[in-house]
């Protein structure tokens, strides 16, 4: 499988990303909490640049044991958001949060020394 150079590992800080254009494929490569993730940069909704938007944790309702609503907070689950319309994807899986049956195509990321590659 062909590999495309992404960046020097030393150049990518926590929360950084790169958009790799390889032929007709566009891939978003994320570096977060010591791990790399790579997904297709085409949103399942309208074809927007899914990997180019905000990274933000999942919003959850706080429901007390007595089932009363106690407000909202952010969970530990990290999302990235398509900037066109707000479709959210889970960083770990590429699943579309609004409908987990939908997901972005995932790509493998390999590190050789200080070089990061995505397998296209």
């Amino acid at each position, binding site marked *: 499988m062909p590999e*495309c*150079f*992404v*960046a020097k590992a030393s150049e990518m800080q926590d929360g950084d*990303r*790169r*958009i*790799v*254009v*390889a*032929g*007709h494929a566009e891939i978003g490569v994320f570096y977060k909490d010591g791990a790399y993730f790579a997904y297709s940069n*085409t949103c399942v909704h*309208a*074809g*927007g*640049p899914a990997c*180019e*938007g*905000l990274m*933000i944790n999942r919003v959850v309702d706080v429901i007390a044991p007595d089932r009363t609503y106690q407000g909202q907070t952010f969970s530990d689950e990290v999302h990235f*958001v398509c*900037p*066109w*319309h*707000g479709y*959210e994807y889970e960083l770990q899986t590429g699943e579309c949060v609004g409908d987990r049956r939908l997901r972005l195509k995932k790509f493998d990321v390999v590190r050789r020394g200080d070089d990061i590659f995505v397998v296209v």
Partner: protein
Amino acid sequence: MDMARSEVRKLAAEDYSTTQHLEHASRQARERNYQDFLIVDVDAHHYESESYSEVFAYIESPVIRRQAVESAKRGARASMLGGTIGYQDIGGRITRHELRRHDIRRHDKLGGGNHRDVAMTLEWMDAMGVDYSCLFPTPMLFLGLHPQVEVEVAMCRAYNRWLCERILAVEPRIVSMLYLPFNDPDAAYKTVKDFGDKKGVVGFMVTSPRYKPVHDNAYVKTYALLEEMGKPIAFHAAYNWHDQSLSLTNRFISVHALGFMWFNMVHMTNWVINGLPERFPKLKVMWIESGLTWAYCLMQRLDHSYMMRTSDCPSLKRKPSEYMREMYYSSQPMEKPRDRSILEATFKMINAETQLMWSSDYPHWDFDLPSVIYDLPFLSETGRRNILGGTAAKVFGLDPKPVKKIP
């Protein structure tokens, strides 16, 4: 055909541009050969509030002008035009709302003789493959809720004069249906009289969130004038979170989903039940930004009751849905049910191939691209072309020759 390429991009906020933001839309436009046919966007927006200092200078009353100018100097306090409660950018997730300041800076630096809104609008139009756009304001969509009718009238007249002089007069690809100060029926009539023949004015628009019934006799002379001029009247949806019923909702998704349908459902019901289509048979009526399902629902509701209560609406000679099927609808935000047959039935219900007009609503948070129409498998080729631009060209009187420049 797009050439294969290889590059690695970093994402830097200061590098933001609309052309880059919409690069995937441009790819769609090239893949689908949009350059070969006309695409008209019947509902697009700019942020007129970014030009308020210019618009305020057009306010004719020296007292209201001073109030507007002075109140705008202190943004953190109460302002004369009022703000609208809402968070359309989903807590910053729709990044173009924040990043557009880089676009503004770039266009200001480029200069040129025309207003920057002209260049900024043409930039996204070309990126999407749009030939003509009908441009509407953004914050002013809520001006019909202003408690001071004279402020709505003054601001409407100032904005319309500014828009005609600074935008429409200089750019033939940008047209507008001008804001009607509907809370003052005489001022609405005067607006049509004064601006109906201006360059780029293709109709008039009523912002739907307001509390005046459309069947009031006070509006009859305005409808008659519009009918005589052949200019459409459009009802542009929005919400009012202070509305007694809508104030029960606690999230933007809720007030948006209901509010953008609600006011148009009320106005449409009054329009039909009071027999306005019989009184103004040649008046072109458009319903903007409520999606499609509201009409599909309302047609069935009204038809069902009509057969039992014809005495409530004696002016009608046909079922309510038959009148509604002769009106025009903008497409965005187009609902996309998983079962395509439901969408197909919705299109059939409103005679979409002759009555529906594609709209983007760009740059707002839930904009649509032309592909939402182009990619539908159940449309005839003629119907597809009509929805994307042919019908709008007829209603607005536009040259059907494509003029866009897709990057």
